[in-house]
């Protein structure tokens, strides 16, 4: 028989090796840095301008997929290798672990005792049986009920605790694979999209971010109102909210006011408040007094439009401010006196209706209100894999806590008649956190001494 391993065995060993695991972890850590230094998914022009790259450098880096590196073939392959390594390593070790847990060594001979990091010996009086009963009671009390084996006039005891914690590594490791699986499900069956809804209107399709194609969502979504609120006395926005209504066949199913950090979910889709903007021109209302006739009218119209006034002139709203200096809402307007010769624009106020009387023109104008309708910009996500990811996260936390804080502890005892009295040997180990077990073992040894010497 040659000692050369076959190629497949070598390959298997390679994929099972922990050295590979550590190398992959370090490779993943170092290559991930690239994408944090070079901004991802920008246009070629931006790279060439802001990074001062020549076109050939750009092309070379682009061929290496550096500009979208987290989705590049080489990075995904590295992740794939990580998963394969994890799977192989687990498969290789699992049978041995199952054997340790299911078929424990019940009889510890002298050879095995020599390997125990923690051991002790007591010589006592009585019969083998009476000592056995004392030790069984003691172990059952202080540790775990032992399995008793009798062989050649000697008695062997074995007891263990925390055997299942041997599997916590598998929980931790498979949770990483579960997270990968969840991410894949999301990539294949989910999508990211966006949609803008003008106040008062409704939509039934959203726009994919990837392909800019419309995706029907199977129900209608209406936005009744969009609002921005501000912190008192400032221009810092406090909140953006949209009143959304879900409709199916024209019937209202669900109503929710969403805000940043509080989305709406319906039928596997989630709608997030993301942006907003003005929809169309603002609509103004003015109260106008025609001085000559004393007639007062209310006129209404959009920005830039000519609003007919009594006496033949037109009023043209040109712009507005929520707060003009400290005078509150104001509009800038102009008067077209019919000969298409525009006058000088002037300001009218909402809170000071008398103000315009002083201007002394043909009209006294005050602002009633300005209505600007908005659209709300929503991000839309469908991710059927997200629950798989959360399951993986839960398992990774449980698994690593269990891996860190529990260990498989085993204690063996042999009882045999000596020339003078009965010899009791005690040994034990823990598969993790040995120092803590050593302390525990010393305590137990003392109990043994006390019980058996009395």
């Amino acid at each position, binding site marked *: 028989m040659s000692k050369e391993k076959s190629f497949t065995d070598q390959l298997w060993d390679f994929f099972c090796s922990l050295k590979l695991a550590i190398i992959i*972890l370090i490779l993943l850590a170092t290559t991930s840095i690239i994408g*944090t230094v070079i901004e991802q998914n920008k246009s070629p022009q931006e790279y060439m301008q802001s990074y001062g790259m020549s076109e050939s450098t750009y092309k070379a880096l682009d061929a290496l997929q550096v500009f979208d590196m987290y989705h590049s073939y080489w990075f995904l392959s590295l992740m794939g290798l990580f998963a394969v390594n994890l799977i192989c390593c687990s498969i290789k070790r699992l049978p041995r672990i199952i054997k340790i847990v299911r078929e424990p060594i019940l009889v510890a001979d002298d050879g095995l005792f020599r390997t125990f990091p923690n051991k002790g010996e007591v010589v006592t009086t009585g019969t083998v049986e009476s000592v056995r009963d004392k030790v069984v009671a003691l172990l059952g009390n202080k540790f775990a009920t032992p399995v008793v084996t009798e062989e050649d006039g000697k008695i062997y005891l074995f007891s263990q605790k925390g055997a299942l914690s041997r599997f916590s590594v598998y929980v931790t490791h498979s949770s990483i694979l579960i997270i990968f699986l969840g991410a894949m499900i999301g990539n294949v069956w989910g999508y990211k999209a966006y949609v803008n809804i003008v106040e008062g209107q409704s939509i039934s399709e959203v726009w994919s971010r990837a392909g800019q194609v419309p995706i029907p969502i199977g129900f209608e979504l209406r936005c009744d109102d969009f609002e921005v609120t501000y912190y008192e006395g400032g221009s810092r926005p406090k909140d953006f909210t949209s009143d959304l209504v879900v409709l199916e066949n024209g019937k209202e199913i669900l109503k929710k006011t969403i805000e*940043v950090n509080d989305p709406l979910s319906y039928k596997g889709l989630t709608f997030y408040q993301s942006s907003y903007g003005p929809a169309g021109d603002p609509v103004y209302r003015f109260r106008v007094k025609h001085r000559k006739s004393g007639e007062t009218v209310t006129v209404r119209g959009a920005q830039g439009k000519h609003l007919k006034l009594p006496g033949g002139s037109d009023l043209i709203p040109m712009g507005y401010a929520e707060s003009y200096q400290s005078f509150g809402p104001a509009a800038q307007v102009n008067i077209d006196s019919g000969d298409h010769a525009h006058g000088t624009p002037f300001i009218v106020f909402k809170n000071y209706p008398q103000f315009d009387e002083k201007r002394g023109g043909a009209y006294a104008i005050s602002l009633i209100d300005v209505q600007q309708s908005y659209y709300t910009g929503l991000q839309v996500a469908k991710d059927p894999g997200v629950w798989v990811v959360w399951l993986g996260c839960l398992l*990774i936390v449980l698994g690593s806590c269990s891996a860190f804080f529990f260990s498989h502890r085993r204690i063996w005892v042999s009882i045999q008649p000596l020339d003078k009295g009965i010899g009791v040997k005690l040994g034990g180990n823990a598969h993790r956190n040995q120092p803590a077990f050593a302390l525990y073992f010393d305590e137990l040894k003392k109990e043994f001494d006390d019980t058996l010497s009395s």
Partner: protein
Amino acid sequence: MTSSLLFNITTVAYFAAMVVFIVFLTAKNKAIGFFAILVCWVGFIANTGAIGMRWVEAYAMGYEQAPLSNLYESVVFFSWSILLIYLIFDLKYKQRAIGAFVIPFAFGGMIWAQWSLDATIAPLVPALQSNWLTYHVITCFIGYAAFAMACGVSIMYLIKINKEEKSAEGSPIGGILGMFPSSKVLDDLNYKAIMVGFPMLTLGIITGAAWANYAWGTYWSWDPKETWSLIVWFIYAAFLHARFTRGWVGRRVAWLSIFGFAATIFCYLGVNLVLSGLHSYGG
């Protein structure tokens, strides 16, 4: 009593604790060591009170937010977390001398925050108004603090092991180094601190992902901060594997721990100061 007065007391206490720890190491007097810990507790209580007061002050201004909203608040919280971890380890393992290498991190944070960071209480932008922010920041920072502790202990280890190896076998080491815990204990504490830090960082990353998913519908977007936290996570996972399964102890893991903390600090500060991304609020 205002938060800024309490923050001043905190900074002074951490500075005093540092000095007393050094006196303790040179004088080798147990009572001085006890006094040093006492000063640490005073600083920690002041730090806790200061953060609490700042919370109250923000509410009084009409902002319903935890005091974890900008770089200043995060740095003083980092100092608080370091003390929390250190004091717990002190209660459990009673290795006083470590304070001399851990408290400087907390003092450094406080003095930096007090001298050059903007302490005004400003309201949170809508994107940050979420309870997830609190869970996310607390778990991350306890993790970072445990890594700071591991780094301090590793520095002590490297100093101590050189001396231990040079001195004749069995002869006790005198001088300041004699006050250090043995290299074996230091090695173990390094590992224990990382065992606290690693699950906390894991939770920090998960709460961050949960929040991102809740706020934007993507739990992972390879934003520089996210990526760096993953890099740090990989480094400590490599550390744990090297130790668990390849039996790495001593110098190599001490260096790995120092290196891991350098990456942690880059993740915390470097990313905001050097790179750009979604977490820019911290800068």
